[in-house]
């Protein structure tokens, strides 16, 4: 399958209709597949309904705009996506955070730095004293001279940088993230290292996010981290702190890849066979609230992309944020949730077991 250069939405692909994605994901029986409903798996282990353990991570998706068009992107992000969070909605996020004991704000996208209010938002978040994570795709730092100072900006606000790098070589990285992405990512990592990110004793955290470049599950996080550290240090003099191993979730463009390559059923079976009850207990939606670019609230970034807003009578928009009501909600689950419970589990912070 050739690398996509446009989003599903731009291509008017049938999967840009969320109803079509949900229909595919809701199918448990077909000619080539018979898999149990995820909900039933949770019933079997006494975990249904899945409830919240307490919101500690406030994950804000500031928009679908991105300089890359990764083949596996669950956001269907790209340069052709214009949906980004307004300053008014960001202010509502800040208002919602005040007076809560939520410790961490996790900024994601698209490329969050492309939102014109990104720096203002970070400065205001910084004043609240929250831990801030930015999911930086690395190449954005080199995409335009106006982004070249991002490492210094991140440093100023003691932001934790989490960056995707699916492999320590060009072939697999570029196959997933686009031609030339590996080389630019390495340059960006060297720029982050140059201001202290990922360097021992600097206090500036640079974490890498690994996800498989195909229809297979990730290796153990610790073994991948050791291999990445050795290869990136020896080959490119790049240092980083931790590596998070993430499983690809069958949503949006990764779902497209699975269907086009005729691997959807086999991948779902692989996820189901690797279902781990311990991972299910630790899924990230239990301590996370996800905020969409338009201010609506979701259990996680994947439910956000499937437009599955928080359930029940809980207020569904950031303007009505009610942390105690959200702490008492039931989490919406569907077949894509098998992605977070396979093997050692998967979250934005990597393995959960």
């Amino acid at each position, binding site marked *: 399958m050739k690398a996509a250069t446009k989003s599903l939405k731009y291509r008017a692909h049938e999967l840009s209709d969320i109803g079509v994605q949900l229909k595919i994901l809701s199918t448990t029986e077909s000619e080539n597949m018979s898999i149990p409903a995820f909900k039933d798996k949770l019933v079997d282990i006494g975990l249904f309904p899945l409830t919240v353990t307490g919101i500690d991570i406030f994950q804000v998706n500031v928009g679908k705009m991105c300089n890359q068009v990764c083949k596996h992107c669950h956001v269907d992000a790209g340069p052709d996506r214009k949906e980004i969070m307004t300053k008014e909605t960001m202010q509502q996020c800040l208002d919602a955070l005040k007076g809560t004991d939520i410790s961490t704000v996790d900024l994601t996208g698209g490329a969050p730095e492309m939102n014109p209010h990104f720096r203002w938002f970070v400065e205001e978040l910084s004043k609240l004293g929250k831990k801030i994570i930015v999911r930086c795709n690395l190449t954005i730092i080199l995409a335009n001279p106006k982004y070249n100072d991002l490492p210094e900006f991140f440093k100023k606000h003691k932001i934790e940088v989490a960056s995707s790098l699916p492999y320590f*070589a060009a*072939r697999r990285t570029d196959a997933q993230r686009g031609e030339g992405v590996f080389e630019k990512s390495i340059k960006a990592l060297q720029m982050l290292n140059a201001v202290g990110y990922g360097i021992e004793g600097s206090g500036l955290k640079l974490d890498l996010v690994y996800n*498989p470049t195909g229809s*297979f*599950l990730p*290796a*153990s996080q610790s073994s991948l981290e050791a291999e990445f550290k050795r290869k990136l240090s020896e080959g490119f003099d790049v240092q980083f702190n931790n590596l998070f191993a993430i499983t690809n979730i069958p949503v949006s463009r990764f779902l497209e890849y699975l269907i086009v390559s005729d691997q959807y059923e086999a991948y779902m079976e692989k996820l189901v066979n690797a279902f781990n009850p311990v991972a299910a207990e630790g899924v990230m939606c239990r301590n996370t609230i996800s905020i969409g670019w338009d201010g609506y609230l979701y259990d996680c970034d994947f439910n956000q992309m499937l437009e599955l807003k928080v359930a029940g009578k809980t207020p569904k928009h950031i303007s009505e944020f009610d942390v105690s009501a959200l702490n008492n909600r039931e989490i919406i689950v569907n077949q894509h949730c098998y992605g977070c419970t396979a093997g050692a589990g998967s979250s934005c912070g990597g393995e959960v077991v």
Partner: protein
Amino acid sequence: MSKTYYDPADLSKFGEISEYQPELAKKFFSYYGDVFKEGALTEREKALIALAVSHAIQCPYCIDAYTTGSLEKGADEEQMMEAIHVAAAIKGGATLVHGVQMMNKAKEVSM
């Protein structure tokens, strides 16, 4: 009777060999599982060895399983192909080193 000797779908039925001999199958799969656990060698190194051996013994099931297995353990195409070259070198070398036996015999029976 199937029309071909190898069917990819049979790979996932491997466990069914226990149907005809449960005790030995149980011992085998337990041993098999332990062999591939992280030990003095990493799981990735073991997957790459398995991939190389799969080619040497030319087992289509094993090649499928350990191509995916190697990728899942974090190996890439370059490492995987190098592993297969190791198998090829040993197989080629094993053929050629017997050339010495041929030479010995030839000398033995010749004037």
